[in-house]
């Protein structure tokens, strides 16, 4: 027996050596490396785990790394475990030097007091060159904490070919929208079952459900916080919010695949691109997906703003990606990190980053947009691009919880699952719309209590 044990131990040891030896990079002790080479090291986190994005980011970071003579370490942190990562890292002071992330993390980190004010960089780069709305989202008390990289905008993406085939027009109000959605429930093989659904209502509890609910709220001019005073107003409009919830649930029952209760971003995007749904709310990522997975579909895609109940949308839903610098590593490190971030904002670079997700990401620098719009990947969408870009610039779009500027409420709403749970419960008839909205209201107030005790 002992011999056998010994044999196995040896086999394991050999395999271990091979494995350690093979990839080479597995066990580089990197803690002391900066001292050995004399180079400063910047640690960068990004939430972008999609291949195309991480490739472009890595390329740019490496360019700058050799240009500035610093070492960079790039760590993708997926959105799904971002908050546990940030919270634990903050607790122990192991946050990165630079982070490329959505406004929710900017708000979180700003609330923790670990961010470096970015006003100087914005001014050096030219404040006017940045989209004002994107700057607002990074602003608390007149100070900018994150440099906006790109902005995203939710529209209804739809199949132009199906609209043409069934003689449908872009809907102008909710009645028309519901009618178009049901008209697009199509049984292509005539087996009595719907093969293409009109409009999916994705409600996955992590990140997705909130993004489904808010475009409808904004379209009717409702917000969580008052855009000018920052006061909590969600609780004042329960009646309308219930009505909106009911409208969404009617859409769910009439024209959405029942499985969409647990659909995530990739589910509804795949569904549109592979031809299983005719319209969907999305931040334009369907375009990039179609380009890689189903190129024939690209020409069929178009978008319009989700209308309000009785007419055009009063506001729309969007989001940003930003670069922030964390002030934990000492003055020299912070200065270096800021310099690094600043160098990322050459129009060509900003455009290139946004173009890694065409029509999903729009550069927040006007100078970069000029380059962006001529790129071949967004070429077919000139009209859509103008509509989106104009509504982005019009200052009538919000991210939930941030209607009045950078706010940790957004972080809570982003990290939490109670929106999804409430909406799924209504869809499954476990709650009424009234109960669901009241539950959301109660949970939101709880979070506000945490933020401002």
């Amino acid at each position, binding site marked *: *027996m*002992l011999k*056998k*044990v010994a044999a*196995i131990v040896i086999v*394991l040891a050999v*395999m*271990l050596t091979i*494995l*350690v030896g*093979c*990839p080479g*990079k*597995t*066990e*580089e*002790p*990197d*803690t002391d490396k900066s001292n050995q080479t004399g180079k400063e090291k910047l640690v960068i*986190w990004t*939430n972008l*785990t*999609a*291949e195309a994005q*991480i*490739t472009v980011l890595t390329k740019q970071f490496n360019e700058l790394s050799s240009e500035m003579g610093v070492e960079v*370490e*790039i*760590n*993708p*942190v*997926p*959105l*799904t*475990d971002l908050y*546990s*990562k940030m919270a*634990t*890292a903050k*607790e*122990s*002071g*192991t946050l*990165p030097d630079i982070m490329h992330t959505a406004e929710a993390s900017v708000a979180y980190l700003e609330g923790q007091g670990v961010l470096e004010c970015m006003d100087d960089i914005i001014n050096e780069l030219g404040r006017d060159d940045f989209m004002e709305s994107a700057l607002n989202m990074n602003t608390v008390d007149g100070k900018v904490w994150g440099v906006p990289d790109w902005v995203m905008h939710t529209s209804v993406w739809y199949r132009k070919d199906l609209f043409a085939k069934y003689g449908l027009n872009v809907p102008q109000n909710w009645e028309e929208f519901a009618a178009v959605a049901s008209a697009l429930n199509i049984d292509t093989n005539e087996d009595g079952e719907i093969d293409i659904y009109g409009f999916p209502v994705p409600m*996955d509890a*992590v*990140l*997705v459900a909130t993004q489904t609910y808010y475009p409808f709220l904004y379209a009717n001019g409702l917000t969580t916080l008052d855009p000018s005073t920052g006061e909590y107003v969600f609780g004042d409009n329960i009646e309308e919010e219930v009505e909106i919830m009911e409208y969404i649930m009617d859409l769910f029952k009439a024209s959405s695949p029942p499985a969409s209760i647990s659909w*995530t*971003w*990739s589910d509804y995007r*795949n569904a549109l691109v*592979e031809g*299983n749904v005719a319209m969907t709310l999305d931040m334009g*990522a369907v375009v990039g*997906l179609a380009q890689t*997975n*189903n190129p024939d579909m690209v020409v069929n895609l178009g978008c319009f703003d989700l209308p309000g109940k009785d007419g055009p949308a009063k506001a729309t839903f969007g989001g940003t990606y930003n670069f922030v610098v964390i002030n934990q590593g000492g003055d020299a490190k912070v200065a270096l990190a800021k310099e690094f971030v600043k160098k990322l904002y050459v129009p060509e670079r900003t455009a290139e980053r946004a173009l890694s997700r065409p029509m999903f990401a729009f550069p927040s620098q006007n100078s970069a947009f000029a380059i962006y719009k001529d790129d071949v990947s967004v070429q077919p969408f000139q009209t859509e691009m103008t509509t989106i870009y104009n509504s982005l610039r019009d200052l009538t779009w919000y991210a939930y919880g941030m209607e009045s500027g950078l706010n940790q409420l957004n972080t809570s709403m982003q990290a939490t699952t109670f929106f999804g749970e409430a909406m799924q419960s209504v869809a499954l008839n476990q709650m009424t719309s009234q109960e669901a909205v009241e539950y959301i209201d109660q949970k939101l107030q709880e979070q506000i209590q945490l933020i401002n005790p």
Partner: protein
Amino acid sequence: MIIMLENKVKKREKHLFRKCLIGAIVALSIGMIAFPLYWMLISSLKPSTELFASPPTIFPKSISLEWYKKAFQNSMVLTYFGNSFIVSSITTVVVTIVATFGAYGLTRFRFVGRKIITVSSLAAYCIPPIMLMVPLYRVVSKLRLISSLLGVIIGHLALTLPFAIWLLISFFKSIPREIEESALVNGASEFTVFRKIAIPLCAPGILSTAILVFILSWNEYLLASVMVSQDSMKTLTVGLANYISNVQIDWGIVMALGTATTIPIVLMFSLIQKYFVEGLTAGAIKG
């Protein structure tokens, strides 16, 4: 005579029926186990047109390696694999040694606090790992191990040690003490008895414990996901779980990576499972 013959026929029929039944059960269980794995494998080999076909094809019409090319083009899978291997191996070695000493000490010697330690090692087994997460992270970051694999290893020590101790206690209990006692009477020192008699007698049990610890550590996700942030330090489960974050699930790539991570561990285990079975069945766990 005729009755006897009839009985024989009946018996044979019964025998045949039973054979068929057992055959069916065997086939069913093999199918249940093989199907999900088979499906992962062929999904990773289907080109995108076929992957998203509805209804799905059970036998792929064409086979392509495009997803594997994409998956390995830019990904860190090999690094993740190496990390998992290092973490699991070190955890296994440390836990096995510590637990062997510990379990032997607890079963063969009497001293103050022995009972408490025994009981609390089992009690430790039912503490939700999630409860350990934040405090353990603090410990690890205080030790400045957050950007090394040692952090994950420490987490896995906490997770696997109680179970290993508990298993080994029952292994040592199942070995009769008489042999050791007679050796002691003959003048051997306690440590020699431990080294030369107890360990060899218990070797199959120790080996199975080691394999169990390895598997637990290899599959663990929660602690491994929190303990490191560097991409180059992620374990396989964490690295792969990142690919199913709901931002973008690229099913073909994900299936290719899933297959690539499952096959090595299954092969490795197949090679050593004989010893695992031998050890676990050597007479432990009788309650």
